[in-house]
């Protein structure tokens, strides 16, 4: 084809046949003429310019394609691993209390729960939820080996046996979080089951927990060996200051949630396995609800797809995302209610008094608050999350100090409800302008 003779009438059918539409602009037309019709560039450009001068002025409305949803995480496997470990650890309460006394175990748990949650939130924020974060964590060999020892040592020096136990429990639980994130649930579950079996055979409970802590630490160190090819390589990191700040905020949120767990004095963590098992309904329901939130990212994007930039920013953007959140919340509350009812029925069989439906409801609200706090944090509202957690923990502390105890679990209920009430409107607000939230917060971290 001789490009010199290529008038728009001849060029247009070639271009449209190749594209299946009118060209976007003269450059697109020229590229098509050159690449698929072999027209020399200088002539293709000339023909394309003439072609565009005659093109109709019709605006196409673009509807973006949604990315493919991420592969579902190993929710069932991780959930089962979590379930087994919670039940097993609940079974530790009696042997530990028999061996160390109620007072030491209570003090240990009062420290271990907030500390564990703080470290879990902080680690997730700094390493575990970051792309390549496991590799970065693996580089901290010294901290991985010495950190657990230091935690136990500091606890021992400060609080004696209670501190030792607090340190060991913290090390075991936090190590378990790392192993689950590393897709190593089996070693962790085996360690916990072996420890539970050892306690059942009458071995010294503290020594068993010590062994569990050591084994978990070694498993973490082994799982994060730097030469492991399955760990994703990491970009050079100049972001430590930012991430450290984020991790600190997340750690504080974790502390707040931990305090909410332990500040309610009507909940005893030392009366056999039942109090710990009371966490089970809300914990399992929380996992189920959170699993549904994996659809949230696509739902947010679906809310933006097809909404023209010419229109107002809030037209229906939030609906798909809010639907996902509503389902997650309903899952959490519904399953908590069902499992709690089952637990109340089973409690007499377990041989201990139930803590009452107030405690179970309180744990349920706490799980709801955790879900919503985590969600708001991931949407970039971590400062407001801190405020909500502080307000909730403060409320619980006030209820405990003022000895307001109309029924067991009132502190948990009040704290959980307040935190949920504070963060839910913020979530709705952020999602109602989700284009801005996505553009300025989620995609520019």
């Amino acid at each position: 084809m001789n490009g010199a003779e290529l008038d728009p009438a001849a060029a247009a059918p070639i271009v449209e046949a190749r594209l299946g539409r009118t060209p976007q602009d003269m450059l697109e037309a020229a590229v098509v003429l050159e690449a698929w019709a072999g027209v020399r560039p200088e002539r293709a450009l000339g023909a394309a310019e003439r072609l565009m001068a005659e093109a109709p002025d019709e605006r196409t409305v673009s509807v973006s394609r949604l990315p493919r949803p991420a592969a579902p995480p190993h929710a069932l496997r991780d959930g089962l691993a979590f379930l087994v470990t919670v039940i097993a650890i609940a079974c530790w309460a009696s042997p530990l209390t028999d061996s160390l006394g109620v007072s030491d175990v209570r003090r240990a748990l009062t420290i271990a729960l907030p500390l564990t949650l703080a470290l879990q939130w902080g680690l997730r924020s700094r390493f575990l939820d970051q792309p390549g974060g496991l590799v970065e964590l693996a580089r901290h060999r010294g901290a991985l080996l010495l950190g657990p020892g230091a935690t136990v040592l500091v606890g021992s020096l400060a609080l004696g046996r209670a501190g030792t136990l607090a340190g060991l429990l913290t090390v075991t639980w936090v190590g378990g979080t790392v192993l689950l994130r590393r897709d190593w649930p089996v070693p962790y579950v085996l360690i916990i089951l072996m420890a539970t079996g050892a306690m059942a055979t009458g071995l010294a409970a503290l020594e068993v927990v010590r062994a569990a802590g050591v084994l978990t630490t070694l498993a973490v160190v082994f799982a994060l060996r730097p030469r492991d090819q399955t760990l994703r390589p990491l970009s050079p990191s100049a972001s430590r200051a930012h991430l450290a700040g984020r991790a600190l905020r997340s750690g504080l949120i974790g502390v707040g949630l931990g305090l909410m767990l332990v500040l309610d004095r009507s909940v005893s963590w030392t009366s056999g396995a039942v109090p710990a098992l009371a966490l089970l309904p809300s914990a399992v329901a929380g996992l189920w609800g959170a699993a549904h939130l994996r659809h949230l990212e696509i739902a947010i994007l679906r809310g933006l797809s097809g909404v023209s930039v010419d229109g107002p920013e809030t037209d229906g953007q939030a609906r798909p995302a809010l639907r996902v959140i509503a389902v997650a919340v309903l899952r959490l509350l519904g399953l908590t209610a069902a499992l709690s009812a089952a637990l109340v029925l089973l409690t007499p069989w377990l041989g201990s008094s139930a803590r009452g439906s107030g405690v179970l409801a309180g744990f349920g609200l706490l799980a709801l608050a955790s879900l919503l706090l985590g969600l708001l944090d991931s949407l970039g509202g971590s400062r407001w999350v801190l405020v909500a957690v502080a307000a909730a923990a403060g409320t619980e502390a006030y209820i405990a100090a003022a000895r307001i105890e109309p029924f067991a679990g009132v502190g948990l209920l009040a704290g959980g409800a307040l935190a949920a009430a504070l963060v839910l409107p913020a979530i709705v607000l952020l999602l109602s302008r989700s284009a801005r939230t996505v553009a300025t917060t989620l995609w520019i971290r």
Partner: protein
Amino acid sequence: MTAPRHRILLTTEGTYPYVMGGVSSWCDLLIGRLAEFDWQILPVVAPGGRPRLFELPPHAREVGRIEVWSEVLPPRPGWRRRGGDDALPATLTRHLLGWEGSTEAIVEAWRHCREHPALVRPAFRSKAGWHGFLAALREVLDERVPEAGTPPSLDLLEAATLYQTLYWVARTASAPTPETDLLHVTAAGWSAIPAVVHRALHDTPLVLTEHGVYVREAYLAAVRSGDSPGTRFAATRLARGLARVAYAAADVIAPVTEANAHWEVGLGIDPAKILVVPNGLRVPSAPTAPPRTRTVVSVGRLDPLKDALTMLRVAGETLRLAPDAQFLHYGPVPQGQEVYGRSCLQLHEQLRLGDRFRFMGPTDDPHGAMRDADVMLMTSISEGLPMAILEAMGQGRPVVSTGVGGVPDVVRGCGVVRPPGDDHGLAMAVVMLLRNPDLAWRLGRRGHRRLQRLFDESSCIEGYRGLLHTLAGDSPITDAPLVPVEPVAADGDAALPGDRDAAVAVGLTA
């Protein structure tokens, strides 16, 4: 007294020294042979560290990497100045995406990013930044310029994606560059950003070498992507905007072939700025005779620009007429083209090519691969001056290729050129050469002589030596001619590669 050693900052984009390919080989050759300069390499790369594939000589060093879309965060602003320049997203949108945007305004905005790197992130995270961006985007979409067509109406997801891309443009502009005497950019896109800013700050001379034409390749990728109109619009306008800034800032634009120069002139560059420096190859002394095993060899990445699907169809048609022929394709499936790679395998299976067409994977001995060939085949829809064709000519093998970029000028007289996508025409040419080995060998030797005459490695190196020394302020130390661009093709109407009626074989009729 010895002359001072000049420092050259070479910026690359997804190529040297981390990815094998024509541009990387060219960088390696240039750096290796121009040892009188101190080379500082600054690659712009995707996140996820890759091993370096090229060993740098002692006079070259990597001076950092600019990772785009990485998790690496920029420096934090000081406590006294927390806010960013909220107008930054709007400025970049208006002038990078606008058809007639101001290149000076972009350079000024990028310069601001470099001077205040900590303010880039706050600017893009701010409410005002987002709203300013949306307003500027609406302005761009409402532009009516005849040759620019009617922009599509983007949706908010496309807008948010574009916003993030502009953020990374600003982040790239904010990256520091080392002191240098010359800037050498290897593509008129992302790799030009740090060099353009450096030039604005220090008035350092800037050379831009274009192997392909950045804008053209961005459009080709967009056309083939199947993306929505808004996504295509954003990608192509951004590429055009980046190229316009690179062209405006460059003191010399050095395409590897005249065909690219015509694109560059068409994109508005003053022809006086353009100096064609063709790629070159070290020419083997004498070619060895072809094996006469009816082997067709192709070399190139398995990606849409190389149009491997056409190559498979050519093989299918060739094998119907010459069942004893065999095709060997050397080249990797590049990162991000896995789906395309799978589609090639599917077509291979559909066409039942079996062992007659083998994917050999990457090769570090392209010359050896060409020696095993009777015919070299290339089906690309976009090329600059492909090294694979020069390698075939170096081994005295005839070339059957699509007539894109600089291919027709190179292959003239020593091969057959057909329009892109013409699988029937390409297959007929391959069959003809396989059935006439004497003719193929004659064309191959003619190609070898042509390579010696026009595309010798030394000419390429001396061309750059002269250019770089001149820009560095030295007196020219070479008389090697640079080829100024002709605004219109000087010759060869009869040999137009795209002329389906006239040019069955450029080489055969030359």
